[in-house]
């Protein structure tokens, strides 16, 4: 994980912004290595440098959807030495998930190019002055 370019505090990115991107972000995290839910969240928080504000309970529905659609595979943790409480499920990205992640990255890049260009202003063509058309 890379730290931000500067140490300025970032504005929080909450659930409304994250909706629609959460599954791709989870796939990106799992592409690095398999992980259980809490670890996925920890990696997301670390990568988001504290700016991501995720309602943690909503992580699992996203994982279940990914599992249902075959993009991740899950297994119960075998060994939980030194830890009390119930078993954890370990999630691993599948080939289908990897393909979905590539498609998600392409779509995201295009989105940033197009929408970012408009929002930042660099893609906007200056309007001709009135009366000169």
């Amino acid at each position, binding site marked *: 994980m890379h730290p931000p370019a500067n140490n300025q505090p970032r504005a929080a990115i909450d659930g409304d912004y994250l909706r629609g991107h959460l599954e791709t972000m989870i796939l990106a995290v799992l592409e690095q290595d398999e992980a259980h839910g*809490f670890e996925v969240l920890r990696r997301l928080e670390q990568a988001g440098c504290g700016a991501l504000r995720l*309602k943690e309970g*909503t992580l*699992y529905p996203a994982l*279940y959807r990914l599992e249902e659609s075959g993009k991740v595979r899950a297994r119960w943790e075998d060994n939980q030495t030194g830890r009390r*409480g*119930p*078993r954890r499920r370990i999630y691993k990205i599948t080939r289908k998930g990897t393909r979905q992640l590539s498609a998600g990255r392409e779509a995201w890049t295009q989105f940033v190019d197009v929408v970012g260009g408009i929002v930042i202003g660099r893609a906007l063509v200056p309007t001709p002055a009135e009366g000169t058309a």
Partner: protein
Amino acid sequence: MKDTYEQLKVFVERIVRPVAASEKDKLKMREELYSHALDAFEHEGLGGSDPAVALRRTLARLGKPGETRAALQASVGWESRIEHANNRVFRRSAGVPLVRHAAKVGLLTGGALLLVEALIALPPHLAEVLRWNGEGQIHIRMCLMLGLLFGTGMFFGIMYSDVAWRIFERRFGRPGDRLRLLGLWALASGTYAALGWGFTLAVSHDPIASKTLGIYWFFGSGLALLFAPLLIEMDLRERRPLAEWHALDLGDSTGERAVAE
């Protein structure tokens, strides 16, 4: 005052219990959310925070139970929803008397069989039924009888399986005892099937029809009941880990309040 771990469990159970999904899926949700809550609680308490503060923060991190529940519900597949609907009919809820539950299942299944017969078995003989001649009366009588037998069978089956479940759970923990119980079950299944056949022969006036019906009944109910121990064993395996979750009292809304604050 409930201890912290139980409060976390109650919070999780409040999210998961109303979700319309199979018990297997709901157990997965419970275990994962509880495991996550424990990790989060441990994380919140790392700096030596007051446990009450750490608990409040943990619950806030998990989000509003209603939102999480809705998101979980949206992730449930159709097979799981069907299993849940099936469980709602065939599994007795806490506080419902056994006889009432068995009667409900008997009426529903007997009625459903009558409906299926009316839609599938009767139309080819509709002319005879409408003329209300001897043959038409036999068809109607057979359909009613089959529905009645099936409904009654389900009623006694439910009563029987509940008693057997209790015996299985409390007394027959060792493998040898289980084998003995399986033998008893096979004997009971055979007796039940034979009684059904005898009943069919006794009440039907058409020997050919009653013989056919009797053979169907004998093999159908006999086979179904022979598989019953297997189904109960599977059901037990599913129910055992659920018991501690179902025993939780959700009356106290501490978790909901903590998140709302």
